[in-house]
């Protein structure tokens, strides 16, 4: 749906040149929710703004649904932009317009007939659950409600793509979850392609199908969310993942493991294996004792993801066999 090739954007600040984007390649498929994560200043905001030409790149090509956006100007660019919805961190609603009129705004821009505007706006307000706030002004709404208005407004002209520029960063965790749920519903109902950028790993974890990690203007890692979460390849990705699902094991336990003969294992269960009673089977089949030190289960989009830290004790041969058994399962086992 969105193809980004060799995208480069350089900002000049006096005599200093800042490479905000350095030869970025990315492909976003029709109907998926794609996340771009990075720390502030990594270039993610510039990247998303290059997709609707709010920033013009120095080099590279961006195509949205087959149209080369980078080559467009004037009226042609405006028409293309009408097919790309966008929501913002600070919502950017018109303070002088009511909720209804804010959602009607993009329809006025495309010269939609009045009666049609009315039906469409009411339909959208119902979709985002704000039918009763139609006459309120943005100043009277909470952050979450403002972002819902933003979403309704972005969807008004039935775009193929929705760009989310740190759309939940100004919201509290609970509201963030609600807004993300809404985005996911929209993605499922309408098959809308969503590209979201964020610095919050939980956002990626909750709704994204694929994720790209950006640092210093370059994509350093890119893949399905589950893969990046469970087996991050780069240092940057590991650092981001650690905050969310990684566990901190007390130093004392690690030392105990290093000194003694005990085996401290970290076992990760992904998907279906998270439901299997593997530990029980292990204890029944082998003369080993399992001491569970830590356990948790997370959800990455729709896939359950379990983590268990166990201490195995027993004879060396038994431990060996237990280890063999574990590695044959559909699990990731790691000795700590």
């Amino acid at each position, binding site marked *: 749906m969105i193809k980004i090739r060799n995208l480069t954007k350089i900002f000049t600040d006096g005599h200093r040149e800042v490479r905000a984007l350095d030869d970025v390649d990315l492909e976003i498929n029709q109907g998926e929710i794609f996340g771009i994560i990075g720390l502030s200043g990594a270039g993610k905001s510039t990247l998303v703004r290059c997709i609707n030409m709010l920033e013009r790149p120095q080099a590279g090509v961006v195509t949205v649904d087959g149209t080369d956006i980078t080559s467009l100007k004037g009226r042609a660019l405006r028409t293309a932009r*009408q097919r790309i919805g966008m929501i913002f961190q600070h919502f*950017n609603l018109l303070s*002088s317009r009511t909720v209804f009129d804010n959602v009607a705004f*993009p329809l006025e*821009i495309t010269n939609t007939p009045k009666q049609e505007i009315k039906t469409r706006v009411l339909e959208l307000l119902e979709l985002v659950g704000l039918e009763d706030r139609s006459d309120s002004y*943005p100043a009277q709404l909470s952050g979450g409600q403002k972002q819902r208005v933003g979403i309704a407004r972005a969807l008004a*002209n039935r775009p193929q793509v929705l760009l989310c520029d740190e759309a939940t960063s100004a919201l509290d965790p609970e509201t963030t979850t609600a807004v993300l749920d809404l985005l996911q519903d929209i993605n499922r109902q309408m098959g809308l392609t969503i590209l979201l950028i964020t610095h919050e790993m939980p956002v990626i974890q909750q709704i994204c199908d694929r994720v790209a990690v950006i640092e210093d203007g370059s994509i350093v890692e890119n893949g399905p969310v589950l893969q990046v979460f469970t087996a991050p390849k780069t240092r940057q990705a590991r650092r981001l993942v650690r905050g969310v699902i990684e566990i901190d094991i007390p130093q004392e336990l690690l030392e105990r493991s290093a000194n003694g003969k005990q085996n401290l294992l970290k076992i990760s269960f992904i998907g279906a294996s998270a439901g299997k009673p593997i530990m029980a089977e292990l204890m029944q089949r082998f003369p080993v004792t399992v001491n569970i030190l830590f356990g948790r289960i997370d959800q990455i989009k729709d896939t359950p993801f379990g983590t268990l830290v166990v201490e195995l004790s027993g004879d060396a041969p038994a431990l060996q066999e237990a280890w063999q058994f574990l590695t044959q399962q559909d699990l990731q086992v790691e000795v700590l």
Partner: protein
Amino acid sequence: MHTKRTECGFRQTLRSIVHSIIGTSAAGVMIAIATAVLLLSIRTFNPTIQHLLWQATGETLYMVGVAVVLAELIGLPLGIILVVTEKGHVLANALINRILGIVINIGRSVPFIILMVAIIPFTRRVVGTSIGTTAAMVPLTVAAIPFVARLVETALKEVDAGVVEAALAMGASPLQIICKVLIPEALPSLVLGFTITAVNLIGYSAMAGAVGGGGLGDLAVRYGYQRFRGDIMLLTVAVLIVLVQIMQSFGDWAAERLSKK
């Protein structure tokens, strides 16, 4: 904040105006008392003076009223051009922006009394005469245009850049951004700017006597100062004070009413 949209009838509006001017604040009460005292003291003067005073008040309101409307009509587009031609804005154009900025600064740096005399030939071309109240309106308008343009510029710059960006992202044209985003979003500030212009023009209009324009300032100079009538001087100043207070209160009320923030 005024948010009830049902309260829209003419009578309610009128009531709110009266309320805002006299009813709600200590300042409002002061204005009401001052106005009453003023009207009573005017009646203690002889009928000729009274007639002169009312006539001068009418001249001032006429000059200022017409000049402020004309200046807004011309200054508003200029202010908009100043903003949208700025670097990075919707119609960025460094050359136009620079030239317009310089012209406006020149206009603002000429003292009014000099401007009034300097443009006499122009005034004669426009209204057919260089003497009288109508003739004074021309330099008043000319002086107010650059002032309005700068006030409009300041008001429009207050509009959140993110909102303009959102409109651009939706595919709005520059004209749509001006008419549907910049002006409506800045409306309360624009109204305050309009008030400031009107109040300022009352000050400028005191110099209209120099071209026989009449008005309250002229009355104060000719009768109060040159004929040593301190009481008339005081009276005209009191009328000016009350006029300015009423205009400012009304402007504040209207801006507050329009603001949805």
